[in-house]
């Protein structure tokens, strides 16, 4: 497991495009938004969060693009299978690395920006945590989509996993509103943590079955 995490993180590290791209685009969007519309500070406060939500959704989609594709195409996946006899750990560590090195930084950028724009409702930690958790959920989901449509012709991964992102978005929206109005945040965050655990345990299983089917 440690070996896999090391491998995955060094692969990711050298693919600057994969991790820097999503972060840069997150920054760009959060910068561009106030520029693109002519609004007073008061209004911005109210809506900045939904922009963050939307950017989160897109950057996590972007970040997971080609997550398994490369390993599938160059044959590394088969090699890993021979060593591990299973993809569960491979998938788990890959998602872990991606969430740690892309997902969490993006959430951090989101939180920072919201504060820099004076949208300092609730406290920083709460915002950061809920963004990170929804990134965890989204990464798992989109990783599955990517695994499904490992070959270029297949759209089905996107077609079917994108809609499933809606509940996550709705949840995040609720969490943010609860931060905003200060009610039942703990409840929602524990729901998200629960879902996070559940999905992080189950999704890799499903993804690994999918990958196995693909190399079969």
């Amino acid at each position, binding site marked *: 497991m440690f070996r896999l995490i090391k491998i995955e993180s060094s692969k990711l590290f050298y693919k600057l495009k994969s991790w820097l791209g999503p972060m840069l685009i997150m920054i760009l969007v959060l910068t561009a938004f106030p520029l693109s519309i002519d609004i007073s500070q008061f209004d911005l406060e109210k809506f900045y969060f939904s922009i963050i939500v939307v950017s989160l959704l897109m950057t996590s989609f972007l970040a997971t693009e080609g997550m398994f594709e490369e390993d599938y195409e160059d044959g590394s996946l088969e090699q890993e299978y021979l060593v591990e006899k299973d993809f569960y750990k491979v998938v788990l560590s890959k998602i872990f690395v991606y969430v740690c090195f892309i997902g969490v930084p993006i959430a951090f950028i989101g939180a920072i920006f919201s504060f820099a724009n004076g949208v300092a409702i609730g406290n920083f930690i709460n915002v950061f945590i809920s963004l990170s958790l929804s990134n965890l959920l989204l990464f798992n989901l989109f990783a599955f989509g990517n695994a*499904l449509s490992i070959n270029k012709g297949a*759209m*089905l991964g996107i*077609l079917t996993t994108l809609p499933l992102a809606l509940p996550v978005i709705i949840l995040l929206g609720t969490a943010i509103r609860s931060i905003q109005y200060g009610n039942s945040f703990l409840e929602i965050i524990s729901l998200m943590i629960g879902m996070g655990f559940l999905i992080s345990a189950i999704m890799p299983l499903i993804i690994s*079955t999918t990958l196995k089917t*693909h190399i079969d």
Partner: protein
Amino acid sequence: MISAFIHKFSSPKSFVQITKTLYPLFIFTGLSMLIIGWTWGLLFAPPDAVQGNSYRIIFLHVPAVIFAELIYFFMALCALMHIVWRVKLAAYLIKSAAPIGAMITFIGLFSGSIWGIPTWGTWWQWDARITSTLILFIMYLGILTLHGSFSNLEKSDRLMSILVVIGVVNIPIIKKSVDWWSTLHQPASISVSGGSSIDPSMLYPLIISIIGLGFTLISLGILSSRSYILSREKNKKWVLKHV
């Protein structure tokens, strides 16, 4: 042990034989109950106190959306069977149930939209239940298009099952969305545990049309799955004998 049992009773061959005898019974029950339910509901049930006659679309809308979910649920069960025990028949059933599910979901969406015009004043709202029903519809379409993108049929059977299982999280969302979010859509008006908030004169025809639609859909499913099975197993000896 279990898997041996399952495999014995889930051979495509015995499925085709059993359904052949059951089919006339199902189609007869289904159609006759549908006719009874709909004539009762559309012609004889009293008009609603608030909505007048426009409420009568309930006899189409509610059965349709109920089966939109149930068919998906059925597919998810099949998918589990296929993943765990590699039951071939299960994959065939999913494949042939999907178009029916898509159709009935579309009817549900469509009838709901039409109903929305007089009651909500709009045919579409991005509210949670409506959106999640739309997602269900998209899932059906995704499952339908899946076979197109893989040339290896067994592979795509397995991927399809995985996909179906994942999508099942959508079902409780549809079901519970009216409770979780305050929305335009009606909360549950029929409940098994009693305390239905709907008048018996409307409830009975509704229940009859629900059951009727159920049997009709099952017989449709039998038809489509039989032809699908025959086409997939066309090189097997028993199929040649059968045809």
